[in-house]
């Protein structure tokens, strides 16, 4: 896979420079690590802050979701690598306006350790932090070990819910509870068709034959549940829905939102073909679909593949999901 870049070492910094230059109304670099992005216009005074962080290469995740009704700040690492604890601490400081800060991010070892350490660092600044981890990828551990699961595109739903709760003026406990509820209500599954290349590594994250796909593969190329021949869109979507339903049954009268997400190279045309099955399965189970999201919400650069994320809603979650939000990549309301 060919990439358009200058020096691999400059990839992330140049990307952030371009992002903030193209969207100065949304994003600004905060502090001098060069790796913390905060809202261009600070949130309301006294609003609970929400920070996230993780490796680069997943746009719009993570940085892209800094914006009104979403995140306040984000610490961003090298491609697929955790930002440092120092950078996370800076992001927490940027997000704080006195009401405390929720750390909302995906369950990856390095990120967890660093966000914990960042919490230790900002204790000196008297900033209270809470944590909600996304563990939505059903392929990454059995239900009995749910807490070991990776966080993937469910993050986007959690940002939306937590962001709306904070914008409503809830306190840190309330925002944290809403985020946790969102995280608990999300299940994801992905399928990979082709790898991507980490600029500094210069070679693909994994190898896969021209007629093969891998069900359940992680967004960095972590092994999935099976690898086999490419199947039809209906079969792929069917199995993905089966796996989601197995983990979180959906029935008559349920209200759910569903995200059909491209991992990067897979075009929207293919997402819409998949959506037909997704819709039929959900409605066949008696559920009502609320605000389906079809597009590129959480990617791995030029990886080909898709993920489905399902969030079961109650009245509170539905209200927060459909509340307004605004960033360069996503607008609701």
């Amino acid at each position, binding site marked *: 896979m060919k990439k358009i870049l200058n020096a691999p070492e400059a990839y992330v910094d140049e990307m952030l420079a371009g992002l903030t230059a193209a969207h100065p109304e949304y994003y600004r670099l905060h502090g001098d690590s060069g790796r913390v992005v905060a809202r261009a216009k600070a949130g309301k005074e006294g609003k609970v802050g929400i920070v996230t962080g993780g490796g680069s290469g997943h746009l719009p995740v993570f940085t892209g979701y800094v914006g009104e009704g979403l995140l306040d700040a984000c610490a961003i690492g090298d491609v697929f*690598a955790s930002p*440092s604890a120092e950078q*996370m601490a800076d992001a927490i400081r940027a997000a704080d306006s006195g009401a405390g800060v929720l750390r909302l991010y995906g369950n990856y*070892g*390095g990120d967890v350790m660093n966000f914990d*350490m960042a919490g230790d660092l900002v204790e000196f600044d008297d900033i209270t932090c809470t944590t909600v981890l996304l563990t939505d990828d059903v392929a990454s551990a059995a239900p009995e070990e749910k807490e070991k699961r990776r966080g993937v595109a469910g993050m986007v739903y959690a940002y939306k819910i937590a962001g709306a709760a904070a914008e409503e003026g809830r306190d840190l406990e309330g925002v944290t509870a809403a985020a946790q509820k969102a995280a608990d209500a999300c299940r994801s599954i992905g399928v990979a068709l082709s790898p991507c290349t980490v600029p500094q*590594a210069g070679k693909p994250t994994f190898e896969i034959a021209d007629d093969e796909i891998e069900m359940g593969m992680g967004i960095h190329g972590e*092994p999935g549940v099976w690898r086999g021949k490419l199947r039809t869109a209906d079969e792929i979507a069917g199995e993905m829905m089966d796996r989601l339903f197995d983990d979180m049954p959906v029935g008559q009268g349920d209200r759910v939102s569903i995200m059909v997400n491209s991992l990067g190279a897979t075009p929207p045309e293919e997402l819409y073909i998949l959506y037909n099955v997704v819709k039929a399965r959900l409605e066949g189970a008696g559920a009502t679909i609320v605000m389906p999201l079809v597009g590129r919400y959480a990617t791995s650069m030029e990886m080909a593949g898709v993920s489905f994320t399902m969030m079961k809603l109650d009245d509170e979650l539905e209200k927060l999901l459909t509340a307004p939000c605004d960033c360069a990549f996503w607008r609701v309301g």
Partner: protein
Amino acid sequence: MTIDIVAVRAAIGRLALAMERDFELLNKADGALGDGDLGVTMTRGMRAISEKAEDLPEDLGQALLACAQAFTKSSGSSYGTLLATGIMAIAKQVKGETEVGADRVPELVALARDQMQARGKAELGGKTVLDSLDAVAGATAALSDPAEVADAAARAVTEALEAFRDRKATVGRARIFGEKSVGLDDPGMLAMERIVKALADREG
């Protein structure tokens, strides 16, 4: 002979050199069971510390705190953060001291191990850097002669590496490799073997 800032500077020098030398080795080990960046983490981290070496204060606590911070800033990788956590734990313990005897080594290593365990939320016996530190703390317990401590530490860290080689990884990125991790060194344990040998000046 006790450990003071001069000894720390010398140890930093040896360790920095060792990490330049082992760059490929560690990347490769991590490439087999992870994302292949452990060599990068260690050389970057040691370069950051080396840059500060001359300016480190005599107070060992302050000096080690500065080292930990330099390491933390240089990357966000798991190993870097764990090491920084361990160094910080030791730093707090020796704050205000300018000399530390070799007899304190087991206690300080155990302290680092415990803080790192708290940070990483992993069990002992999981085939990680924690098991290397645990072996070193155990092997040096009750020793006080600097040469004996160094010998015991170097021996223990290699033995731990070998003892865990055929076990299954249970923590971090290596966990997802499951059975495939059997027979392969845990990259973090391998790195700790190189670190301890460089610090103990017991190479080869």
